[in-house]
């Protein structure tokens, strides 16, 4: 089955998320800092009364810092992709939003192991497309807190 994805760039990589998760795409303006954020949270946006956490995908995926070259990301193209996951809105800070691509489920290979040095466990898989490869993000995992309460040591 072919599905539609919103694709965006992050450093050298091209990523995409299912179009039905995307609520809107906006410039990164009006970011509010919050106390003691996790390292990958930039702050929040107040969007019509909704408090939306903005996640630095680069930090979340543990991508290497962008080399400071002329080919680095163009700040004018930087966007926040507002997505809805588990009924709640989150913002993804990306270098540039590209286009809508159609990808067939069968074209997504899930046996990706190491991916550009980043976190492979945040990916659904790698999609082959006539324009090249897209990394399909597993949004619930990317935005999940994956933080279980500290628990006593293993039962003796």
């Amino acid at each position, binding site marked *: 089955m072919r599905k539609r994805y919103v694709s965006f760039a992050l450093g050298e990589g091209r990523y995409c998320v299912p179009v039905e998760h995307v609520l809107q795409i906006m410039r990164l303006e009006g970011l509010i800092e919050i106390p003691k954020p996790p390292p990958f949270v930039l702050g929040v946006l*107040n969007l019509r009364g909704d*408090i939306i956490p903005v996640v630095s995908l680069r930090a979340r995926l543990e991508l290497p810092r962008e080399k400071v070259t002329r080919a680095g990301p163009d700040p004018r193209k930087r966007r926040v992709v507002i997505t809805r996951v588990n009924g709640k809105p989150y913002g993804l800070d990306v270098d540039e939003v590209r286009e809508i691509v159609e990808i067939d489920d069968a074209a997504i290979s899930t046996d990706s192991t190491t991916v550009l040095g980043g976190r492979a466990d945040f990916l659904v898989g790698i999609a082959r497309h006539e324009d090249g490869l897209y990394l399909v993000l597993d949004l619930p995992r990317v935005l999940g807190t994956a933080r279980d309460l500290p628990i*006593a*040591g293993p039962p003796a």
Partner: protein
Amino acid sequence: MSSPASGLAASADDPRLRRAFLEEADELSQKLGESLQALEADPSNMDTVNEVFRLTHSLKSESAFMGFARLSELAHRMEDVLGLVRGGSLSLGRPVMDAVFSGADRIAETMAALAKGGTDTQFENGAILRSLSAAAGTRAARTGGAGPAAAVGPAATSPAAPTPAPVPALPERSQAGAAAAGAETGPTGETLLQGLGDFERAQLAEARDRGEECLRVTVTVDEAEPMKFPRAWLVFAALESAANVVRTVPALDGQPAEDAHYARMSFLLTTSDPEEVVRVASGVDQIASVKVERCRFDDLLSAVTARAAEADAGAVEAGAEAGSEASTTAASAALTGAAADTDSRTPTPPEKTSIRVDTKKLDDLWSLIADLVLNKSRIAHVSETLGKGMDPEMAREELAEAFDDLDKISGGMQQAMMDTRMIPISVIFNKFPRLVRDLCRKLGKSVELSVSGEETEIDRSIVEALSDPLTHIIRNSLDHGIEFPEERVRRGKSEKGRVSVSARRQGGTIVIELSDDGRGMDVPGIRRKAVGMGISGAESFTEAQLLDLVFLPGFSTKEVVTDLSGRGVGMDVVATRVRKDLKGDVALDTVPDRGTRVTLFLPLTLTIVNALLVRGGTQLYALPLTEVDSTAKLTSSELRGEGGRESAAWEDEEIPVFSLGALFETGRRRSDEYFALVLRHRDRRAFLVVDELIEEREVVIKPVDDLLNAERLFSGVSVLEDGRLVFILDTSFIRRENSDREAPWAPAS
């Protein structure tokens, strides 16, 4: 009546009708559950029997009207059984009660499914219907085969057939007529008046004893009507609203026959209002003719009995000795099936999209709106006269007054709106008698439940989230707390265990207590387990600290708790729900052999709180006033200890000192004097040093995403008018951080 043709359910497709039906029927279904509880407590109360009968009747009629045939049939059978009880010919024994309960459960489940847009046809009610029939059947066996007249117990009055009030418009059927009618057959070969079963005869006898009349109604559907079956159904539904339909030819249940067979329908029914029957039957569209004839009960019963006697006699006589028992066995066999049915599908409450509000609350709101309108015209007047040269000073005073009023009005409106969100906690508590009853039966224990404070009002959103944890705690009490009757007697306790549930309001908090007089929790056992698990310092934990471990994920696993012969399976889930989702707290206390008490502390509402606004660094925080004891100034000389472990004296007690700067790592300003709040969380207090006290105000709380709350320091977030964010602090950190110092659940390294 399994899935009638789809065409007749046109009414069920009308969303407004459907919604109205759901609301109405949902309420009936809830009342049915409550009345059944009452009935079980006092089976001899005829008022309750009548109420339950009336409720099943209404449910039957309403669902038939909407075309929910299965639901209607279920309610119908229940009504029949209750009719027998009402008539005194069936006593409310265990199998009967259980069958009716399982029917009520299924009705509730069906309502829930319908509310979610499902259909009643997704439910297979066969087992329940069989258990209802079996329950009704126990009566037939118990009372022998002498016919329904003899079946009427001595308690029932006027067994003699009353003289029916004549309805001149109706032709009367003689015995010969009845016999002739008996020969009349429907197109499918069924007969209306022949071969009436036990159940149908019992219904007739009942109706006779109630002083009702028996009618035969023959309806011919307009030839031009392309779909006869749906019409026949509508007639049936209409008749059911005014009468009790005993039999229908051709039958409407089972596999529908060819549509043409329903061109002419005969109904045998009993009613107290024949004219109403005529009226409703003629009220259905596309009906060519309605013929109503009166039958005489005795003719009908004796004719039927005479004909069926031979066949029945053998069976009934054979059953006379062993019969009662055999039937009961059959009933419980059918019941087991029904129970299995229900267990696999736990009833879920329908999701409410509309709410009921006490009209008094709306009246309050309305009068405030009237004030608001007055206030508006007052301001309009000032603005107008100001234009005409009013003294600005007077205008200022006038406006200031108007503003004061506006302030009061808006405050009042907010309160009134909040009140509409409040509902009595009885909506949860009402489920407990049933829960306890079922668990007792399942576990073989005996428990008396006492409930108090059920009128306590609590925010709607809290109520919804509270149901599961409370249910869980009660289940634990019965499972692990209350001993078996023999054991209780051995320990010198009353055979019957006691579980109490209470709710009360205490300031801005709702306190819910659930206690039992069971064996209590094994505190030394918990300590051993904690030590065994390598929880450092467990050797010296206080009892409260040990009991708090039960709320830790992973601690109260089944295996552990069974070892402890205490309880607490899944208490971590309860704690998470209460502490995290409901911003409340939960505490345990226990006395060996005397029982255990779980106490829940819940905020009155989750949406608006009075809070103290403070600043730490550049960030604003709010602390709910209910958790602030006082404000204080601390001088550096009062501080003892160092490195994030400082403490200071407060009212003869040495309490820890926290600071916003340290909590949020924004750095702490060194100074000789600090502003501090004295926070209270349950039994603990602590100072919190802040950079600035700003004001006391109301804040509207929004949930804060887990991503922003990794350390669970916040209970919510609020946005001020100017767009600034305020994080509402969850003061439970003062306990946690305290514990951290003592490293209670850090793994031993």
